[in-house]
């Protein structure tokens, strides 16, 4: 499993704005292993999309990435690529699925052609051959009666079908890495599940690695192998899915777990984390989560916590893990959820 295809090292992304410099990504490092799905979760504004756009070389013009940031993919630092080098990476080696299928297809181009485009570009295919392959891809992503619909325009399709087309576009050139930035947020729940299942099956067939972005931990459990939790431009905890769900260490992760919509109605309703994320124009000193943290320690407002090792695969950046810190247990509500999840897991394994 530990065969990284992508290494992100000390990534910083700043944005120049009239108000000053927005420090959107503040020293993010992670590995993506061959064939795995890594979920990046965090509230809105935590820097998930900026991370994915950086991986595609598609950041806004006002973005500034310092020289010590490195994105190592196949023995080269993507941050050194020229624009034309990037064009041969995008949609070819690294592809992306966007959030809103209603707006991400060109309304004036036939869908079959939109799926064929990456093949024409990256595989030097002739139009007819590319369209033939597009048809196969349409079947592969479960578009019924694909032959009849290859010449349709986007407005003739539902949101769920369009997102399947977007998935087909991303998979067209057989990329090594697939980035999905909240690929189901704009869809209703049943369609969401279909798209997620589709992505899982396709990953089994192609063996590609997936970076799966979401603000909703609920969809992570069934999708990902590992989870990285992001807050205010930093990763604050990462580990395997089981580690994040059953042994979370960071109070922010607790908050996210607590705000998960689940089928267990014991507590009822959503519990958003109180407070708001900090201003990234002037990030606070110390632990950025301190002001919203019910378990905050005095040191949190003075010094930034390093990553503490929980296991070989599990690290968390919270002073609570320091040996001098008082021992705290996660909130009761989360403990109740664990009991519930364990029950569900047992039921599933019996079935």
């Amino acid at each position, binding site marked *: 499993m530990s065969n990284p295809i992508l290494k992100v090292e000390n990534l910083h992304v700043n944005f120049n704005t009239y108000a000053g410099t927005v420090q959107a990504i503040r020293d993010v490092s992670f590995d993506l292993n061959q064939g795995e799905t890594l979920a990046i979760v965090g509230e809105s504004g935590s820097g998930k999309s900026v991370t994915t756009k950086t991986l595609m070389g*598609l950041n806004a013009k006002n973005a500034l990435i310092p020289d010590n940031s490195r994105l190592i993919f196949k023995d080269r630092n993507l941050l050194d690529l020229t624009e034309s080098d990037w064009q041969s990476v*995008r*949609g070819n080696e690294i592809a992306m699925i966007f959030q809103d299928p209603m707006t*991400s297809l*060109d309304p*004036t*181009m036939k869908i079959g052609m939109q799926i064929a485009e990456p093949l024409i*570009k990256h595989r030097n295919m002739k139009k007819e051959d590319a369209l033939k392959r597009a048809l196969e891809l349409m079947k592969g992503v479960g578009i019924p009666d694909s032959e009849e619909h290859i010449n349709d325009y986007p407005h003739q399709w539902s949101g769920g079908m369009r997102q399947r087309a977007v998935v087909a576009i991303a998979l067209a050139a057989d990329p090594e890495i697939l980035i999905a930035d909240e690929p189901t947020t704009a869809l209703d729940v049943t369609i969401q599940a279909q798209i997620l299942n589709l992505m899982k099956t396709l990953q089994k067939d192609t063996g590609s690695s997936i970076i799966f972005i979401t603000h909703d931990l609920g969809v992570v459990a069934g999708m990902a192998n590992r989870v990285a939790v992001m807050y205010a431009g930093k990763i604050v905890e990462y580990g395997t899915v089981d580690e994040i769900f059953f042994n979370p260490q960071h109070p922010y992760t607790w908050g996210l777990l607590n705000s998960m919509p689940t089928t267990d109605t014991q507590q009822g309703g959503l519990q958003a984390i109180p407070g708001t994320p900090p201003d990234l124009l002037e990030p606070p000193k110390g632990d950025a989560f301190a002001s919203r943290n019910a378990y905050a320690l005095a040191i949190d407002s003075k010094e930034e916590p390093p990553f503490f090792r929980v296991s070989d695969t599990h690290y968390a950046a919270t002073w609570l893990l320091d040996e001098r810190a008082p021992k705290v247990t996660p909130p009761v509500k989360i403990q109740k959820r664990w009991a519930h999840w364990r029950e569900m897991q047992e039921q599933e394994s019996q079935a």
Partner: protein
Amino acid sequence: MWKYILKRLALLLFTLFLVITVTFFLMQIMPGTPFNNPKLTPEALAQLKTTYGLDLPLWQQYWNYLVGALHGDFGTSFQYQNQSVSMLIGQRLPVSAQLGAQALVVGVIAGLIMGAASARNKNNKIDGTLGIVSTLGISVPSFILGIVLVYLFGFKWPLFPVSGWGDSFSQSILPTIALAVSPAAVTTRFVRSEMIEALSSDYVQLAKAKGLSPKEIVNKHAYRNSMIPVLTLIGPMAAGLLTGSTLIEQIFSIPGIGQQFVLSIPSKDFPVIMGTTVVYAAMLMVMILITDILTAIIDPRVRLQ
């Protein structure tokens, strides 16, 4: 599609009928008569009125006019004896149509190029310059531009002929430019804003994520999407050209219907005024119909019913 076109044509005919009716009765309340030569004897005047059917009751005149119009007969000119209005217009219409078409094509093509250049260089010098040029182009009326062109390229640097039509193509260059500037400016601004919107859209983001080059993105995705709304402009621009051409034809002594129209007003040549108005209205409506049909063909989202 055909059903839709037929429906639109029927509507067009009905509108034309309304235009004819309104113009006919407006002519009646226009002061003065075409026959106000004081030397005319009452007998001669009566004679003239009978010739032109002006002695008949009003509703009869209206009916005759309608029936005539249905057969393409818009009466006889007061001014040029024995010349039928249809013939007068028929001779001059091709001239105006050619001038208008040249100006429209030149204007729209120039606008498409400048608008795209402006959008792709958003907020730098090229964009700024084109912004100023297009603002000027919109605000300066075409006849003033015509006069300036005549002065500059007819007298100061005599490069082009400044009057006449049909002897050589070069005669049409200055009037075409004078008329084309406004549609070019309007198209530039429109294409610029449409293109900027398209370039920041999600589907362009996806096109980038596919690895397409900026040029491919503009040519394959952004252009088509920003051109569709431009089509809707062609109707109004054609209307602007119709009115603009009346004065331009005067300035460059071009024998088109615009010039005819201007000449017929002081001489109270009612049949010509009315005939020209109807032709103008018809041309305008046909232009709008053509744009709507083109939009439906080019934009897959528009489904005609």
